[in-house]
């Protein structure tokens, strides 16, 4: 027991020899958790197509058009200066561009000179949708004026007006009537929301907390391989042969030490999740301990197995970062697994990160307990047994 503790303590000293290790142990994980919790799509964000609007008129009519566009279910208008808007459009960062030219007012609509410029990228469906939304908005804003204009034209077609004043009075009366009719217009569309079940169980805070916890704990546990490579390069592994220490004691001491440190790191991140992000990590502490321990054992076992394949410390270090990041990505730690194509969702079940993520989400997102996380814990222990087996079989002091 004393030997195990000594080996683990030695590894801790090596790992934290540089204070920069704290960056990776706690600072960066918290930074990433915090950013991704606020930055990943929550499902409640505005998914409407962005419409770049340049308002050179700045009149009540131009503002009405913008207000109508804001009500649209399809587009999300945003004001930009002309130069910036044109640059975005030219660079194709905007699918469409609406320019409301100076001089757009009621008088210009009345005398039929009111025009808007709409530019759209070719064969772009977003631009087509935006064009329709713009047509709807200007129709709503101008329809009563258009109706009054038409009434005037119809009247002119059936007789002349005695004076310009009479003509204007006729227009004004028609406009008033059209506005009344428009205000009294009945609703002709009703929207009923279906009862389609939402397939994606997602909370950006819970997903980010669990996902980043796994990412930042798995990478250093895979880094056990670097510890072995370091000691092999330094020749200290061979020196252990001269002491009455068995291979199993050495391996167990190394792994137990790293797993213990991983549990401390995970606990800190869990506490951050509970106290800063308000997540329910602590609802079932025994279940939480089981899933954290199983995840750490699985990752530690993979690190042990990897350590028997790599030759140098830097190789092991690079490999552990790469494997950690790729497994985290594919395991659903960065983006919800439910968004992946169905075939990919099945394939990634071969990864421990997938099971660790599912187990942790069972606890923190789905309010599960020990019974719910048992399947994931079982699979993670399976990974641990398999890779420890490989590691022990292949382990050499030289």
């Amino acid at each position, binding site marked *: 027991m004393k030997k195990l503790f000594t080996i683990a303590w030695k590894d801790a000293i090596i790992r934290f020899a540089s204070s920069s290790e704290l960056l990776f142990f706690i600072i960066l994980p918290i930074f990433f958790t915090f950013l991704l919790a606020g930055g*990943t799509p929550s499902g409640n964000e505005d998914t409407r197509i962005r419409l770049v609007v340049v308002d050179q008129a700045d009149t009540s009519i131009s503002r009405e058009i913008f207000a109508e566009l804001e009500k649209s279910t*399809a587009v999300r208008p945003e004001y930009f200066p002309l130069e910036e808007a044109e640059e975005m459009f030219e660079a194709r960062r905007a699918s469409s561009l609406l320019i409301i030219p100076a001089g757009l007012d009621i008088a210009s609509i009345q005398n039929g000179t009111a025009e*808007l410029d709409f530019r759209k990228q070719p064969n772009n469906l977003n631009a087509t949708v935006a064009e329709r939304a713009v047509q709807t908005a200007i129709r709503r804003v101008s329809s009563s004026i258009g109706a009054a204009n038409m009434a005037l034209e119809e009247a002119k077609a059936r007789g002349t007006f005695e004076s310009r004043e009479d003509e204007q009075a006729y227009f004004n009366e028609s406009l008033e009537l059209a506005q009344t009719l*428009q205000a009294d217009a009945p609703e002709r569309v009703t929207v009923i929301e*279906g009862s389609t079940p939402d397939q994606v169980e997602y909370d950006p805070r819970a997903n980010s907390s669990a996902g980043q916890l796994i990412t930042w704990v798995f990478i250093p546990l895979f880094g056990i391989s670097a510890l072995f490579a370091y000691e092999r390069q330094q020749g200290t592994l061979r020196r252990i042969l001269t002491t009455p220490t068995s291979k199993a004691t050495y391996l167990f001491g190394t792994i137990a030490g790293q797993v213990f440190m991983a549990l401390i790191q995970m606990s800190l991140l869990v506490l951050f999740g509970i106290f800063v992000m308000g997540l329910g990590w602590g609802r079932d502490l025994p279940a939480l301990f089981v899933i954290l321990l199983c995840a750490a054992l699985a990752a530690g076992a993979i690190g042990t197995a990897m350590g028997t394949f790599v030759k140098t410390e830097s190789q092991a270090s690079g490999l552990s970062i790469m494997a950690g990041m790729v497994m985290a990505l594919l395991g659903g730690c960065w983006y919800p697994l439910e968004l992946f194509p169905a075939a990919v969702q099945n394939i990634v079940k071969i990864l421990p990160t997938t099971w660790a993520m599912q187990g942790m989400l069972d606890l923190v997102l789905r309010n599960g307990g020990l019974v719910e996380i048992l399947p994931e814990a079982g699979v993670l222990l399976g990974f641990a047994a398999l890779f420890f087996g490989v590691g022990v079989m292949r382990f050499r002091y030289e």
Partner: protein
Amino acid sequence: MLKLFIIGIKDLKIIFRDRAALILMLLAPFLLTLGMGLVTGRFSGSSTGISDIPVIIVNLDKEQLGNALEEVFTGEELAGLVEPTLSESPEAARKAIDEDTAAAAIIIPAGFTRSVIPQQGAFDEEPEALKIEVYANPARPTGAGIVKSIVDEFISRIEEGRISGQTSIVQMIMSGRISPQEGEQAGMEMAERLEDSPSSETLAIKLNTDTNEAEAVEFDVLAYLAPGMALMFLMFTVTYGGRSILAEKAQGTLPRLLVSPTQAAQILGGKVFGIFLTGVAQMLILIGATTLLFQLKWGDPLGVLVLVLAAVFGASGWGMFITAIARTPGQVASVGSAIMLIFGILGGSFISLEMMPPVVQMVSKITPNAWALDGFTTLALGGTLPHLSTPITALLTMGLILFVIAVVLFGKKNLVTK
């Protein structure tokens, strides 16, 4: 100049012989790009764009307006946007939405046309307003919203026609231009005229639509993800190069070079040139590999090349700055790895910057990743070199400022001394 070039090429060869470095320089960004492609459905044909929105139309009206709305959805104009299916049963349509097989169902009630346009002889009666039902799928909010907007536009068009007609007729009757008995006939004539005129011409505000003449480009999601990953690991490469300067100093090989007739500036310049060359080689290899293996179109080749050079210059500036403030190669390695990850997330390699809070978007401007990714996205969307003036200027300025600071700090540390 030759010495500078020789030192640079020597460092390039050393780094490309280091298998461990190659893992993070080439293999990691390549595998992460592959992973990103898998999870976004880029390799399985799943579309994340807005097209072929499945919509079910139940036309129980079977008259003028119901048929017109049906034609709007089944016509050529919306052929790429919606994928309509006709159904006779409102219940079946709603059930299909509940089962998530379509984005929305449009149920046009029987008698809808007559509720808007009074029948001949019934002009005096105010018909009961019937409503078109849009049964929306909450799991597909964007598609359902677009369907709703198409129906809204259709309704606003017919309302505009109705209000115009009613205003004209009522006003003419009120002014004595026609008799109440002639009103119905005048209304029918107006309706026929309106029906014949294209919809846009009836707008009181004319909408001049101009389609960009350039060739249409469909955005490939991988064109955002691949440069994002390549740029993140570019930061590893430039700090790795910086680490080698301090390692050579520690091992004494850097001062030893000064025994030869080589100036300190040439040695340092050669080392920096080596870092720059390595970064360019890394980016070009990744671009080449993703072009060949994933058929990824990066865009205008000249634009890509100039942007790569500018991005590597900007990133090298950071590499030299980190080297200048660090004391040991180990410090460069750990700070470099941390910066690589921080710049990766701030620069949009993990999540599009548009989804980030405004303050993060502002802070991201200090990263070469954000500027370069902006440039690569522009190129992938069909932009060319002239469109890249802003990101290229920003990257070159960033690199220049950081190099100047690094040189001043190197001078203070007497990095290259005999």
